[in-house]
């Protein structure tokens, strides 16, 4: 390693894979874990305590749907007692009366609520859950009434990209202080549904202009974070801020990963919390060290002046599209197969123009897709 190992700052805890929604771009793996594989309360609390010792300052409580964990209040309180900043990432459906207030009382710092569409019909169709939009509106109101700051998260793709102006209005109406316009990236379930989700290039351009104008107009009123789609990019984004550089995630069974999709890289094996301490995994795990820093890079990354800006981009996207996790992210214009991204965009447009199928998406469900062992 050419540079010193830094302590992690952020952690994403996927408390469960259970979820009332079936979004076809879910970042969970295709093989979802059932409830009986989830860590128990005490193990999560031990893990959080070790994370705080290690230097983690911010924990994102996610899933699946994290509020399905009945011990969520306890987990928030445990983190809060250690001074860790807590962010709850929720779909906002089926949260029992009084619980949002209980989360706030336990010390929750911030709530991020997803909207699959800005229109009720879109939200209900994408999540495959009737009435979900209305429930989300109610969750937003309850969060604000409990004094929690709110981020609206809008995952953008072909079927809601024209709703971006309405998402901005929705976030303002719900008194959110942040809005994430986050274009779907093609890993996990989104890779399975890539053709159905891929937006039209003209719509991507329009969206960028709309967001830029809104940011200007709404300075000091709402923060708008914009994550453009990698397939349309010139340079890759620094995925996770660099592999195992300052953040990591934990799956419901305690497997510690550098990113959501890391398990799609077949040469790597990942360790579970419990058998090994978090510190040992962060420091010594071969999977964490595989793409740390810049020593692993091949050309054109190795000699590139941007190597410490984007850290080679996304390893999982390199795996999926170049067949080599150590290749330059094909989103980068310097990648020898960058043109393949444009071909995949074109293929998707042709597929979308073709005869329509009974079901547009492969919805996220346990057991729908099985991968070879």
């Amino acid at each position, binding site marked *: 390693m050419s540079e010193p190992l830094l*302590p992690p700052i952020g952690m994403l805890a996927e408390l469960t894979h259970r979820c009332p929604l079936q979004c076809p771009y879910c970042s969970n793996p295709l093989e979802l874990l059932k409830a009986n594989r989830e860590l128990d309360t005490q193990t999560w609390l031990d893990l959080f305590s070790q994370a705080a010792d290690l*230097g983690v*300052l911010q924990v994102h409580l996610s899933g699946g749907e994290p509020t399905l964990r009945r011990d969520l209040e306890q987990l928030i309180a445990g983190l809060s007692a250690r001074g860790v*900043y807590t962010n709850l990432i929720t779909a906002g459906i089926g949260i029992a009366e009084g619980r949002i207030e209980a989360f706030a009382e336990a010390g929750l710092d911030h709530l*991020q609520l997803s909207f699959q569409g800005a229109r009720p019909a879109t939200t209900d169709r994408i999540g495959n859950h009737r009435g979900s939009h209305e429930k989300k509106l109610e969750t937003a109101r309850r969060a604000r009434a409990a004094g929690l700051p709110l*981020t609206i998260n809008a995952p953008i793709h072909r079927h809601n990209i024209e709703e971006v102006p309405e998402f901005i209005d929705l976030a303002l109406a719900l008194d959110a202080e942040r809005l994430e316009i986050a274009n779907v990236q093609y890993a996990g379930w989104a890779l399975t549904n890539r053709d159905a989700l891929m937006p039209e290039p003209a719509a991507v351009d329009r969206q960028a202009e709309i967001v830029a104008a809104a940011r200007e107009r709404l300075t*000091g*009123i709402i*923060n708008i974070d914009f994550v453009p789609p990698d397939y349309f990019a010139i340079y890759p984004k620094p995925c996770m801020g660099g592999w195992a550089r300052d953040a990591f995630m934990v799956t419901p069974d305690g497997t510690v990963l550098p990113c959501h999709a890391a398990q799609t890289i077949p040469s790597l094996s990942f360790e579970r919390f419990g058998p090994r301490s978090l510190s040992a995994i962060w420091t010594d795990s071969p999977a964490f060290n595989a793409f740390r820093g810049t020593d692993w890079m091949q050309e054109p990354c190795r000699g590139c002046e941007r190597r410490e800006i984007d850290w080679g981009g996304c390893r999982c996207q390199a795996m999926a599209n170049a067949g080599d996790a150590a290749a330059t992210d094909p989103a980068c214009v310097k990648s020898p197969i960058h043109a393949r991204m444009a071909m995949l965009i074109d293929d998707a447009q042709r597929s979308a123009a073709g005869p329509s199928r009974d079901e547009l998406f492969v919805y996220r469900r346990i057991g729908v897709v099985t991968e070879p062992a």
Partner: protein
Amino acid sequence: MTALRERTLLSPRAMPSLPKHVRIQYDPVRQAFAVLSPEKIFWPNDISLDILRRCDGRSTVGHIIAGLAAEYDAEQEAVAADVIAFLQEWSDKLLVKL
């Protein structure tokens, strides 16, 4: 629904404060003060930290400037420009309430 908020422009009589969800916290691992906020962590330098610490909701911008000028033995005018620019920027990011 709620009325649209408006961008707040800094006035010398404003009494800036940190919103509840933004906090300054000492990090023993990195031995530095961090500003924790939704989704983002900032590592302010000493001067920024001094400004933020004075955002107690009771001191006016004018008082903050005078206090900093005295502490750093600097001209008020020079300090004022920096403080005003800093607070407006942090207010625009919704990290400081004016």
